[in-house]
Each structure stands twice: as structure tokens, then as C-alpha cells.
């Protein structure tokens, strides 16, 4: 393995650390010094909070969409821009301590296409601007198409490209932004690790995906997550299972289970079609693996039973493609799922640390 690759493995590891758990990424605790910590008192202000938060160490713009072709064939796409800072403060050009990582994926029932881009801040290769809003790395872009009176994320254009796929989509929001946890202060563990977290879960998507076999017009529904923090997760946490489900009745469910050697921690947001949120406490969401598949030499649970007793929800989620493995420098599983049971719908599942 060449040094650049090896180096980058470490870089990516640092970036993803909070998402995949601190385990195996030693030394991160010390690097927190000098960065801001999430504060429950913080209230979001837009468009500023659509942009980067340089005082924090880690941040992402994370978009997933469940799509269908003209013949009903299901597809899924992912577009993610990660930001991580090696140290607080800025620097001109290549001296900038900010690193950027882009992940893009296109999933079908039989294939999972992945691409990755890496960059550092300062020279303009990757970044985020708020007015007008744009997040980009290389030629991948998430660009606001919203009118001046609207929230910048109300309408966006999204492009990405890999060696064997690309997509070019327009996303129109049909509901408001949604904040998670305590006014956007999202707790990740019983020990108090947390992030700032809001979403736009109401996108109607249309556009074109390009597969190795050719272009396909698609429509579907999308979900954007915005999250930033400085704090690595608890060292006891080995990974997490996160889901975003868009149910046929218009309800959305965001939930996660932090796998913790001292007892799992769960959190969830029950989002009404009008955007109001019920924040569900630890334990309200129960996630039970039903079936695992052998993916990338690991046993990955690709079928789950999801129970939210308080909302009378008991569903099974099943992966569109078991092999939705993100073979990026830090690998994880991320792919579209189908929902069956008391509710029906589609969504995205992310599993890290396996």
C-alpha cells in the first residue's frame, strides 16, 4: 500500500470517526482540544448554519434518496460531503487544516456503485458557500436552486460522478427543515457525547441516473442530514446503526442505535407530514437484527425488525441490495431499504463498525 493511500486511510478515519465510533481511531480525544463543543443552548440560524462550522471539528452534508425508474425499478443514491479539521483556525491555500471527503453511491438490486473524492480546503477544490448555497468537491455539486425568499435548501440540484456511474438530480422540498433532539442538540451516548443535527426529509426527487447500461429517468424521495460536532463518540461505542424511513402515510422516522459495550443507546425522531417532531427517548426505538449477509468478509445485518411501541410501529426493513458496501477508505454499509409490516415505505439504512 502506498503512503498516500495509507495516509489517507488515517485522514478518512479521523473524518468518519464520530459516525463510525471512536474504537480503532485512537488519539482522537486529544485532538478535540481547541474546538468548540456542541451546546444545548445553541439555536440554528439559516442560511448561516447551512454552511461550514469551522469552530467544530467534524461536519457533513449527507443526502440519500430512494428512487424509481419509469418501469418501477427501485434505485437509491447517496451524496455526502464530509468536512474535518486537523486543527482549529484557518490557513491560506494548501496550508489550510481543513480536509474534505466526498462519497457518492448509486444502488440497484444487483449493483452498488461507489466513488470517493478527497480534497483539502483553502484552494477551492472543495467547500461550502451559503449565499448562494453550494457544497462541492471537484465537479460534484449540491447547488441551491431556491428562490430568494425561500430556505436555500428548498430546492437543490445534485450531481456526482464515479468511474462507472453518475447522476444529475433536482430535489424539491415539500416540507420544512426538521431539528432533532433538544432543539437540534442530538445526544449520542449516555455519557453525553452529542452533535448539532437537523434534516430536510421532505424532498421530491426527479432527474437522471447513468448506469453502465445507460441513462435512466428517475423520480423518488430524498432526505438531507446536516450534522456537526467536535466530540468523538464514547470509546466504548463500537459502531452504530442509523435509519431514515419515509413511510407511505407521509410520516418520517429517523432513528439510531449506538452499539455500546456498556449497553446500547437509541434515539429517534418521529416526524409528522407537516414537519412537527416527536423526539423519542433512549429505549423507545428497538432495533432487532433478523438476518445477516456475508458482505466484504463481514456479517452485516441486512434485515431488521424495527419497533416503536409508542407509535404502534412494528416493521421489517430489508435491503434493496445486501451488498451496499461503501468500499471507501473507511468502509461502512449504506443502502436503500424497503419497509413492510404495520407501515410500508422506503428509506435508507447505515451501519458502521462491523
Amino acid at each position: 500500500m502506498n503512503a498516500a493511500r495509507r495516509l489517507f486511510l488515517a485522514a478518512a478515519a479521523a473524518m468518519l470517526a464520530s459516525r463510525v465510533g471512536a474504537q480503532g481511531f485512537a488519539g482522537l480525544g486529544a485532538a478535540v482540544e481547541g474546538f468548540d463543543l456542541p451546546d444545548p443552548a445553541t439555536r440554528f440560524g439559516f442560511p448561516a448554519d447551512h454552511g461550514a462550522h469551522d469552530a467544530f471539528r467534524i461536519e457533513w452534508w449527507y443526502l440519500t434518496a430512494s428512487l424509481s425508474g419509469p418501469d418501477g425499478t427501485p434505485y437509491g443514491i447517496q451524496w455526502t460531503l464530509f468536512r474535518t479539521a486537523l486543527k482549529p483556525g484557518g490557513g491560506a491555500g494548501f496550508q489550510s487544516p481543513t480536509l474534505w471527503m466526498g462519497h457518492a453511491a448509486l444502488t440497484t438490486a444487483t449493483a452498488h456503485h461507489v466513488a470517493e473524492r478527497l480534497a483539502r480546503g483553502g484552494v477551492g477544490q472543495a467547500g461550502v458557500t451559503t449565499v448562494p448555497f453550494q457544497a462541492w468537491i471537484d465537479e460534484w455539486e449540491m447547488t441551491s436552486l431556491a428562490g430568494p425568499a425561500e430556505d436555500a435548501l428548498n430546492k437543490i440540484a445534485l450531481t456526482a460522478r464515479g468511474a462507472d456511474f453518475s447522476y444529475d438530480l433536482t430535489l424539491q422540498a415539500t416540507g420544512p427543515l426538521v431539528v432533532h433532539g433538544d432543539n437540534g442538540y442530538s445526544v449520542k451516548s449516555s455519557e453525553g457525547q452529542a452533535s448539532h443535527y437537523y434534516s430536510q426529509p421532505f424532498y421530491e426527487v426527479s432527474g437522471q441516473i447513468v448506469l453502465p447500461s445507460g441513462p435512466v429517468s428517475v423520480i423518488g424521495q430524498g432526505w438531507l442530514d446536516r450534522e456537526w460536532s467536535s466530540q468523538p463518540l464514547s470509546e466504548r461505542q463500537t459502531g452504530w446503526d442509523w435509519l431514515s424511513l419515509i413511510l407511505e402515510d407521509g410520516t418520517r422516522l429517523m432513528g439510531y442505535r449506538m452499539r455500546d459495550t456498556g449497553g446500547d443507546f437509541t434515539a429517534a425522531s418521529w416526524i409528522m407530514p407537516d414537519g412537527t417532531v416527536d423526539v423519542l427517548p433512549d429505549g423507545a426505538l428497538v432495533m432487532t437484527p433478523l438476518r445477516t449477509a456475508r458482505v466484504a468478509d463481514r456479517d452485516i445485518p441486512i434485515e431488521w425488525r424495527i419497533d416503536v411501541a409508542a407509535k404502534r410501529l412494528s416493521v421489517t426493513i430489508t435491503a434493496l441490495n445486501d451488498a451496499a458496501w461503501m468500499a471507501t477508505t473507511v468502509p461502512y454499509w449504506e443502502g436503500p431499504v424497503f419497509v413492510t409490516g404495520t407501515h410500508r415505505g422506503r428509506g435508507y439504512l447505515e451501519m458502521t463498525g462491523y
Partner: protein
Amino acid sequence: MNRVVLATLLSHWRKRPLQLVLLLVGLSLATALWSGVQAINAEARSSYADAASLLGRDQFDRLVSRDGAPINEARFAELRRAGWPVSPVVEGWQPETGLTLIGIDPLTMPAGVAPVADGKGPQIGDFLAAAGLLLVNPDTTERLEDADLPPLFATQDLPPMTAIGDIALVQKLLGKPGVISHLVIDSAAPPGLVPLDQIAPDLVRVAPENGGDLARLTDSFHLNLTAFGALAFVVGLFIAHAVIGLVFEQRRATMRTLRALGVPLRRIVVMLVLELGLLALVAGAAGVALGYLVAAALLPDVAGSLRGLYGADVSGTLTLRPGWVLAALALTMGGMLTAAGAALWQTARMPVLAPAMPRAWARASARQLARQGIAGGGFLALAAILAVVGSGLPAAFGLLAALLVGAALILPWVVAGVVGRFAGRAGGPVRQWFWADTAQQVPGLSLALMALLLALASNVGVGTMVASFRTTFTGWLDQRLASELYLNVRSPEEGAAVLDWVTPRVDAVLPIWSVSGDLNGLPGDLFGVADHATYRDNWPLLSAMPDVWDQLARGKVALVNEQLARRTGLAVGDVVVLPGGDLPVGGIYSDYGNPLAQALITLALFDARFPEAPHLRYGLRLPPTKADALAQEMTARFQLPQGAVVPQAEIKAYSLGVFERTFAVTDALNVLTLGVATVALFASLLTLAEMRLPQLAPLWALGLTRRRLAAIEVLRIVALAALTLVVAIPLGLALAWALVARVNVAAFGWQLPMSLFPRDWFALALTAIPVAGIAALWPALRLMRLPPTALLRIFANERG
């Protein structure tokens, strides 16, 4: 049966351990010198390959700026945003450490390009952090122990004196913020992108460098080493051949008996091959070990030469390569079979009852000598033809080879002729016998004499070349380095500040500004020179138009170096293609030691053509006595780094140092070759000594004392060595001429005036002749101390 046969054959060596030692010494010396040279070459080539493949230079297209100006780093982001998979690189030389610094962006570098870090791989935090780290070759780590640099990590894949770090760090170390030198284009560029010439018309896409210019530049140097290695190997084979020939003769009776006892001939031959194979393996192993030592001892000098001559950084530490060991062993085997070929063939065809004739083996017929002489004449004729019509490096080396082989083949015939003439007009009986017997010894000693001739001739030839070069080079340096001080500044701003201060304090400031580019299609440098007496008075012109300096000052002509003129066939008056426009050639100057093409135009024209060229180097003219003081004052006042102000003497010393190191290797190989030739002579004499006994015993019986006979034997060898030396001197001069007028021209692009150094020949005679005498001394002493019984045994089969 095999075991019995093999044991019987091997028993010979137990009885004659000296022959065994000689055979092994001969073969292992041959292997050692050859494989030592190969090891050096392999090490150097691997360094070149590392340099060539560094950061995928040999693999990926690059984008460079059209005018050689640095590229703003924002261009990188623009290209990335347009979808072009490019990665930025900044390069530069750090005068304080002598390091070539290369800054990369590990985030966008194409996969498989950056070197592997050894041991504990550096962490991203270390690499990208402000303090950063540099990847260097393990050798370089040692050299830089005291340098003021970020932490160093060792990696094998890098050429010496090259450091790779994060682009941000290297920009800072080189004082080039916001600047990149070129962009690497990942070969995985997707289709359908906006063409580069639309989005970056100021950048040029350059194809990967194939094989590396260094390898091409240094080819001639390595060819030189190889030639020496081959020469030594051939000389070593002479030894092996001499010993094997004798051993086979002495074992004829044994083989006859074996066959009489019912061992099939085929089996004997197979066993002989097996035996030789075993011996070759032993000799090869010893040779490889010795070769490794030779290479390890010579490598630092070779590395020094290559660095000085070509700027090629070669690791000073030898790596043991399995392929090299196997090749060396195979070579020894091959050499053994070559040396034993004739003997094996004879054995395979030998009738059962052929008598043993060790004396006949040593006695080649006059016809054979003549035939050999005719072949030698053929080679010499070929050499003459090549000397007249040949061109290019292969022809030049062909000339050398033909010259040496021809002379070696013709030597026994010449010696026999001279000795025969002496024998013809003999005085006393002892003298008559001396010459007659010497004449008869010539064929038996001819291989050893040929080896001696080759060694002596190379000594004379290479010595003459080196001494000629030294004379010319020293004189040339005096002319060429006319400025008392040379100033290198880090930036034009610093330069302006220094010049403001220094100009009133010196007689003249001579800018030395240059750009790199294609000169008549060759890579090289174009310099701008001021119109100043320094150049008019000193510049070493080989040929020029009458008013060349005036024409140059008016911008009407350019001067080109000898390399450029020779390689592209330019003469004064021809038009040379230069960056920024063609000009007629006003003159050709000698430029020893420079592997590249070079041309000069007047400074005004240069400035007009290349206003952006960095103004960083100057020559300062002032009274020599004031130079040191001014240098010190200037350095202190402007806090210039070490090496920014260089006195003329220092550059001269450095240049001469490079020169001496280059030829230190040649000298060492020369001495070693002479050593091997001495061993060859010794081996031949020792093996012959045993056969000589029956020839000497009658003289003893007739009343010559053993002491006298021994003295005559030594005298004979000294006479033969002297005769060989007499032939070797003209041959060596021919060799020197071929080196100076053909090989150098083809390899380096310059011709040297050849001078003669008779004192060196005299010194060589004072070395070679006593050495030959010493080689003859031991056999002679043995003869002197021989108990009479041993001589008596000659006279009777029975002791009755």
C-alpha cells in the same frame, strides 16, 4: 560408479592443491570484478529508475506551464472543478541541504504513485500538520542528521537526496507560497471533459518521461565500467583456461585408465562437466562475495562521480539483489565452460590409447601462432576501419574491442618473431639455449602475456586519457571560471537588495540568467551573458567567426557548446534553433563535464525574450584579494544562507574533486585488472614450471647449477614482460586515442586534445617488470630448492 569416477577425478586436486587454488582464484577474481561492476551498475540504474518513476513521472501525463513560469495553485482547483483528475506537485532545490524537495497532495495523487513509508507509517496528522514530515531514502536520513528540517521518515523507494512532503510544507520550505510546479494527470480521466486547451491554454500537457534521462545520460559512464569488468573477466578466464588445460593433460593417463577399466567416455565427460560445475560454484560464490566487497568499496566514489558529472543521485549503499547473485554464478559457470571448452572437446574425442603429452599442450605450432596472428591482423584492420568510418558509441566501443582483441591475438606472433630473431644470432651456448627455449615458451605463456598486454595497454590508455583530460580540464576551468565570486540569491527581491549594495563595491556584476528548453531539439539551457571583457578575454572558444563577441553583443549570433554542435552537426555560421527564435552560430565553446546542450545569447536579447526568467545568479568581478572579505560581509549583511556566495576557488576545487572521483574508480579498476593479469602470469608460470623440469634437468646434468637455471627462468619472464610492455605502450596510446577522440565524443560530446606522458610509462615499466619478475620468482625459487632426487627422477624410471 559415478561416485568412483568423480572421486578419481577430484583426487587430482588433492595431489595438486596449488592448481586448485589458482583455478579458483582465477575464476573468482574474474567473477568478482565483473559482478562488482554489475552490482555498481545495478545500484545506479535502480536509483535512476527510482528517480524516473518518482511520483509516476514515467507513468502519468503532466501539465506544465507553457512559459516555464510557476502555476498558481488556484488553477489546480479550477481544473478539479471541471472534472480533470489532476494533482499538484511543487518541486525545488534547497541550497542549504542540497535536497530536492517535492511537495505532493496526498489527497489527489493518483493511486500507486507515492513511495512506501517504512516502519511505523507516518500519520496524517504528522504529514499534513504544520510541522509535517519528509519522506527520504534511508541513506539520505543519515546525511541529513544535523539539517534543520521537519522529522524525516525513511523509505526505500526514493532516490537519494530527494525528499517528499506535503505540498503545503514544501511550499513553505522552498519559499513558494501559493505556487505549484506542475500537475500530474491521473490516467483515469473520464471522457467528455472540457478539453484542457480550452480551460487551461497556458498549460501544456507533457507525455510521461520514459526510462529517465539520467539512464541515457549516464549510459556511457556505465558502459565504461562494464568494459573494464569485461576486460577483467576475460583476463580471469585466461587463468582458468591455463590451469584447466594443464590439469586435463595431466589427467589423461587417469582418464585412459578409467576407460580401460570400462567407464564409458560419455560418463567421463559428464563427470568432468559436473566436476567443473562444482568448482565453478565454489569459485562463483567466492567471486560474488568478493565482487560485493569490490562494489561496496567503489560505490561511494561512483556515486560521487555520477552526482558531480550528471547530477544523478545514486545511493551510496549497496543492496544485495538475488538476481545479481544468480547472474554472477551463471556467468562463472559459463566462464568455466568457456575456459574448459577446448579441453572437454579434446577429451570427448580422445582415443583410448592416446599418450599423455603435457609438453605438447604447451607447445603450439608456429603455424597456429601465425594463424592467430592473421586473425589479430584482421581485428586490427577492423579497428582501423572503425576508426575512420565509425560513428556513435557502439562503433567507438567496437573500435576499442577490436583494437584490444587484435593486439592480444597478434602479440604471441610478434614476441615469437622477436625472440626468434635473438635466437638466430646467439652467442654462447647458454644464451643460445635461453632464446631458443624462450621462443618455445611463448605459446605456453601466450595467454598470460596477452592478459598482461591487455592490462598494461589499458593502463597506458586510460592513464593517458585521464592525464590529458586533467591537463585540459584544469586549464579550461581557469578560463571558464573567471569571476571571483558567484552569487545565488533566493528571490529577485533579495537579488535586487544585494546588488544595490554590492554593485559599487565590485568591478563588474555579470548576470548569469538562464532558461531551460529545446536547443536544436536537445534538452539544454540557454544563458544570457553580459557584453564584458570577462567573456571576451576568457571564454574557451573552439572555433568562432572573427568578430564573434561584437556580433554576440549585437544579438546577431549565439554561441553553442561543443556538445550541442557535435550532436546536431552545427558549424559556425549554421542556424541553431533556440527558445524564442533561431540565430546563427557565432562560435563553439568547450564545456567539459556538462551532459546537456547549452547556448549563449547576449543579455539584452535574453531579457527581451524571457522577461519572466528568474534573476537569481550573478558573477562578481573584483580584485581576488578582496573576494573573501566581500563574501563574508555580504553574507552577514543580508543573512544569506550557506552556499549563496561561492568563491571561484571553491567551485574549482569542487569541479576538480568531481573529476578526481570519476577517475578514482577507473584507477581502482585499472590496478585490479593489472593485479589479475599478474595472477594470470603467475598461474601460467607455476603450471609450466612443473612441465619445465624435464627441460631443465638435462641442463643441470650438463653442469648448470640450479641457482643459475632459476635466475635464467626469472630473466626470461622479465624479458617477455618487457617485450610485452614495449608492445603495450603503442597499443595503449592507440587506446587512449580511441577513448579521447572517439568514445568521449560519442559518450560525452566533447573531444580532448591528447597529450603524451612518457614518465607515466616509465613508472608503469618500473611497476610491471618487477611484478612480472616476482610472479616468476616463486617457481624459480622452487626450482632452486628442488632436491636433486627430484631431478634425478627425470633420468630414470627405476632407482636401481
